[in-house]
């Protein structure tokens, strides 16, 4: 059996978007499928509306929890600007999947800076191998916008070598019991909704 190389995923977003729960699901899916797993995130001050990242790696043997710059197989951005900010983390051939959502950073809210006009265009110019998804809309359609993080997992699911059944099994255990069906529906809508022809990727 050939060794399975380490796969690198960087998750980026804004504090409060559920990046930590998404990382939790990814880690448990990979573990369930027999991989070694390392994952890293930062708590504390960054969580107060700041830019957050989470590193997730799996393979036969993973030495360290950090995805080095320029080596990500997948960049999973829960907010558009936070996708653009971390484009250089991708390795040649890597995939960027971003949520076509705008959340104003505090300097923008204070009128001290402006949010880029055409984030979608800037992202695609920087990284052509990009898909977008309206995770918040899809989650709302499934029942609650709070499941946007799970819709994002659906959107990236086809880029990772995990079985659908494993995803569902882990999501069932990871979310509050009353929200299992809503989350599974968000996952399915996310999987179907990444860059379909009618996806509107504008953030405003």
């Amino acid at each position, binding site marked *: 059996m050939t060794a399975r190389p380490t796969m690198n995923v960087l998750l980026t977003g804004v*504090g409060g978007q559920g990046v930590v729960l998404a990382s939790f699901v990814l880690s*448990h899916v990979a573990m369930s499928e027999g991989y070694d797993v390392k994952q890293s995130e930062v708590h504390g001050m960054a969580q107060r509306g700041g830019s957050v990242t989470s590193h997730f790696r799996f393979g036969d043997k993973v030495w*360290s*929890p950090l995805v080095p*710059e320029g080596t990500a197989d997948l960049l999973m951005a829960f907010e558009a600007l936070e996708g653009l900010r971390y484009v250089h983390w991708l390795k040649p051939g890597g995939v960027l999947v971003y949520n076509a959502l705008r*959340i104003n950073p505090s*300097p*923008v809210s204070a009128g001290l800076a402006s949010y880029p006009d055409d984030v979608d265009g*800037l992202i695609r110019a920087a990284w052509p191998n990009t898909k977008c998804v309206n995770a918040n809309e899809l989650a709302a359609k499934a029942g609650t916008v709070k499941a946007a993080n799970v819709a994002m997992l659906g959107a990236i699911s086809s880029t990772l070598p995990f079985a659908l059944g494993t995803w569902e099994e882990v999501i069932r255990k990871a979310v509050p019991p009353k929200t299992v069906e809503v989350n599974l529906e968000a996952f399915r809508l996310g999987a179907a909704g990444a860059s379909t022809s009618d996806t509107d990727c504008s953030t405003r």
Partner: protein
Amino acid sequence: MTSKTQTAEAVEILSGNEAIARGAWEAGVRLAAAYPGTPSTEILESMVDYEGVYCEWSPNEKVAMEVGVGASMAGGRALVCMKHVGLNVAADPFFSSSYVGVEAGLVVVSADDPGMHSSQDEQDNRNYAKFARVPVLEPSDSGEAKEFMVAAYDLSERFDTPVLFRTTTRTSHSKSLVTMGERVETAPVAAVRRDWTKYLMMPQNAIVRHQVVEQRVLDMAEYAETCPFNRVEMGDTRVGIITSGAIYGYVREALPDASYLKLGMIFPLPAKLIADFRAKVDKLYVVEELDPFLEEAIRLMGIKVDGGKELNSLEGELNARLVAQSLARAGLPGVNPDLLGDLGPQATDLPGRPPTFCPGCSHRGLFVVLKKLRVYVSGDIGCYTMGALPPYNAVHCSTCMGASISMAHGMAKVLEPPAEDAKPDLRKKIVGVIGDSTFFHSGITSLMDVAYNGGKTLSIIADNSTTAMTGGQENPGTGKTLLGEPSAVVDIPALCAALGIKRVTTIDPYDMAETERVLREELAADEASVVIAKAPCVLQFKIRKPVYQVVSELCIGCKRCLQAGCGALNLYTDADDDLKVEISATECAGCGICSQLCRQDAIVRPVSAEGEGS
């Protein structure tokens, strides 16, 4: 997802902090004490779910350390946890605990924060080891964190010493696979054994104990030679690497085929093992984050080191790419080429996304008013430190926990007093701002100093009834303990009065007019005063009031509301090319600060929501 007391042999994904709690539980720990601090907080938050361990948030790290020393002295295995700067606070009992040793095992976790993700400095607490003469274990991942923690208690009891257990943000907050074990049942504590020559540190006893401590270091150095956590992994003998902690993983990725001496016990060091390893390799490199702690010790042994701290930085976090680049620059063979490539396009000129107050946060109104009053604000450590950031720019210094009030006092004492005939200038008064948990931590003695020594500062206690920055932990003002039990509540106004402060006022920081009125009055007072800005944390207590909306016809785009710096507000250009503000209904928590700032009455609550408001 799973029960905390599940059977041995199961494999789980745990963070380093969760693994530390698991390891301590398996080691039969009976007491765990801590003060919350990133990146250490989750250790006790995880520990509390295990049965058979008394857990508490102590008011500060010094108290937590003393509670742990007491438990250990009484014969119960104890765990004490803190962030790196917490060990500065706990240093006094920590150093003495080295002299008295232990009755039952005592482990002190220091979670360091290289890169300062959530800290005011990045001190390398490995240095405390040599200073206090205590052994240090440093795990590389969660699996080792659990394994080392179990062993740390045996080490503590075998050598009659507290053990310093050093993690960093990347070991504490990274997750990896851990194999569960069973709990060792330790004998219950029936009575405290009396041994005053060992446990009472007056000079005649301490002189003897110091001899014991120095001999103990020699004995532990001997043990380090065979400690299973100091591991030689021979590969290509052209390059030998000595490293420890999270850095081990980075170097393994950067230089996959080299030979390694991976140290798990980093003080005292195994001199013979290191010399033997040196003899087996052509060149020896020491790779470590922050200080050249290992390198200096190895060089002092007279062992030749071909490369160390000059290859990387004294500052910040390392990662595999930085390590690879530094080793490639040094001309080492076999560096992983994937880590040396040029990076793709990097977006520049993007607006930053610093942390900020949550929508609805009670601190917002306070700092908008403080900015308006243009006073000098001596700040402290907590969410409210963010009052220093734009658009508030209303906190002007912050150094360490509890310093706000005492630093304000020192400033006021050296400020030139106003001339007799000068008009009163409120801006000349120094203001201290401190949160409730930080006040309990180490602000009380500062306020006592102000009262005792005739200070005239204004101290604002921003009381949101939780330890917010670290995620909402209980504290002596919340009426609840870590174990979820009801508790005594500190009466802050009565406490201030008891310290000797005559002017104590409680305000609602959401009422900006009243806040301004009271602050002006207290700034004008010719004696010390305390203002308690009391409003619960909206994040912790999930407070959402009916949202506000902008009546766009009334909005003139003056941006006055943006002084609130609230993420729910968005400036946009409408179809007529006019600047307008809108409010995100999903973000708005209904605090009304922006509405109070608006002079056009353009920010209102929809009529249908009236009556549900505060």
